[in-house]
């Protein structure tokens, strides 16, 4: 009843091409941002921020990155946690070796390092597709895991192999408490998500989607496959690299190479499958689902009065998790983002049947 585009006529292409063409959507987004900036930092407890909201924001960014490659460009990758690791270690080394460097610059350069490594490991995609490419990117995962565990220079010769970060300071602002970290992350993620949305609705995004949907036709209308695929790998790895640096500095604080193992890569893939391939919004849904589900699964039995042992709980969690992924793949292969779109379509007509 309230969600209609009736009477909202577009008189210019600029108006027609905006990200949220319907006024109600724009209001919703503005409201969401106001709540996120002004209400959440005051209301949310430190536990909630630390356990759910901070990881959710960082993983959203990583999921957006992976979605650009897999969902938009159609190139599969099992090595994205490795690009997160590249971002994290690049940021660590920059912070340690160049004292006083602005943290935003550190993030940017960490992203660029990851982008270069991503483009390098994207080269096999020019020749191979699908499962074969998945295996080739798996090589990136194993190689980079090995590199950070064995080449001591990257960990600054730390004897245990684990590295820890100092408090981040930005223009004299010490980002220490969870609420401060939250505000910083929210800003970074908002800006990068907007940039990702801009990319996918520009010609670079169309060349990715064209390559995904029909690569021969894409080449015949003048899209260079080399350029489309390698930019997708590079941009995707940039996002994931920034997410990796944030994961290290804002969430973990101290980590060892195992923190960016193959299971993280798989988790990222689950996020975009559940959230929705080829949807920026879906990346947020997927990241939320994957962050919140384990916590819910751990707490629900206790709330219901069952007393499960820790092991049973974690096994149960894995089983339910797997079952949900299979269920989603069968019922809604386009993920939560599609459910959201269907819901909006229904809401446009509500309360009338047609």
């Amino acid at each position: 009843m309230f969600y209609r585009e009736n009477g909202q006529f577009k008189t210019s292409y600029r108006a027609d091409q905006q990200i949220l063409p319907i006024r109600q959507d724009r209001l919703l987004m503005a409201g969401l941002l106001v709540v996120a900036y002004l209400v959440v930092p005051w209301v949310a407890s430190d536990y909630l921020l630390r356990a759910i909201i901070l990881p959710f924001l960082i993983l959203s960014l990583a999921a957006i990155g992976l979605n650009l490659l897999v969902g938009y460009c159609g190139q599969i990758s099992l090595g994205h946690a490795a690009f997160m690791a590249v971002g994290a270690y690049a940021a660590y080394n920059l912070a340690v070796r160049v004292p006083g460097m602005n943290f935003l610059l550190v993030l940017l350069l960490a992203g660029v390092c990851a982008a270069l490594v991503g483009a390098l490991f994207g080269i096999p995609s020019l020749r191979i597709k699908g499962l074969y490419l998945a295996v080739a990117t798996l090589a990136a995962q194993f190689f980079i895991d090995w590199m950070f565990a064995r080449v001591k220079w990257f960990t600054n010769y730390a004897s245990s192999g684990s590295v820890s970060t100092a408090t981040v300071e930005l223009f004299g602002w010490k980002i220490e408490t969870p609420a401060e970290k939250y505000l910083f992350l929210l800003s970074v993620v908002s800006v990068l998500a907007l940039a990702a949305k801009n990319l996918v609705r520009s010609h670079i995004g169309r060349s990715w989607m064209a390559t995904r949907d029909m690569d021969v036709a894409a080449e015949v209308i003048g899209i260079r496959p080399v350029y489309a695929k390698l930019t997708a790998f590079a941009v995707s790895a940039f996002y994931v690299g920034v997410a990796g640096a944030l994961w290290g500095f804002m969430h973990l604080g101290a980590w060892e190479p195992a923190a960016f193992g193959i299971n993280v890569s798989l988790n990222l893939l689950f996020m975009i499958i559940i959230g929705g391939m080829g949807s920026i919004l879906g990346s947020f849904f997927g990241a939320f689902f994957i962050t919140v589900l384990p916590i819910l699964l751990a707490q629900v039995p206790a709330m219901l009065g069952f007393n499960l042992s820790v092991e049973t709980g974690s096994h149960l969690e894995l089983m339910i998790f797997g079952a949900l992924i299979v269920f989603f793949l069968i019922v809604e292969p386009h993920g939560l983002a599609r459910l959201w779109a269907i819901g909006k379509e229904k809401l446009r007509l509500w309360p009338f049947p047609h």
Partner: protein
Amino acid sequence: MNPGASLQAVHQAHIGAPILQLEGISLAFGGVQALQDISFDVREHEIRAIIGPNGAGKSSMLNVINGIYKPQQGRITFRGQTFSHMEPWQVARMGIARTFQNLALFKGMSVLDNIMTGRNLRMKSNLLQQALRLGAAEREEIAHRERAEEIIDFLEIQAWRKTPVGRLPYGLQKRVDLGRALAMEPAVLLLDEPMAGMNVEEKQDMCRFVLDVNNEFGTTIVLIEHDMGVVMDISDRVVVLDYGRKIGDGAPDEVRGNEDVIRAYLGVAH
């Protein structure tokens, strides 16, 4: 003189020098000889048909021009530039566009985005400008949107602008395929069976679009088609292929009387 005939005369007067020449093209896949020493030319502004029975090598011929297949022998001259092989994206940038026999649309994208993708090769803004949607990137997008809208108007598909192409019926998908090729503003347009699987009305519509493209935009057209009525009606010259060889070349009436062509299509009495 009736109006149709005078239009025909105007069209004939526009036909110029050869824009695309193929010399001695041979293509083999392992032991299968798909094309053998084929030579023909296409003149500017003409409608050139390629016909032949199934498996004659017609689509292979287009794939060679497009750069999808690499011929073992032969040369292609386009607008004075001679080459033996180019990558498909280079061919596109030189001004040759193409539609496909079995639709090759970008299924996950809307009609508008499919057509906009045809404008991609003319868009210049860099990655950063696009990410930040700076003024230049936005202006470029809008300028190209205007051209895309002209094509949408021309093909009469305004109502389906934002519909994902996968949801459109076959006849409309064929039109979007044509629109995507037109968006490139090509000098030469290769059409691979644009009317296959259509009913009479859809065929008439498609014929009208092909003739309009040829007339209004001056685009040279190379057409593969099985419907002989259409071929004889709209093409200026016809190449006939059979088992990878050229067996006929000339005006529709000449080809119709050609002994080899009749034999290829109807067979011979033993």
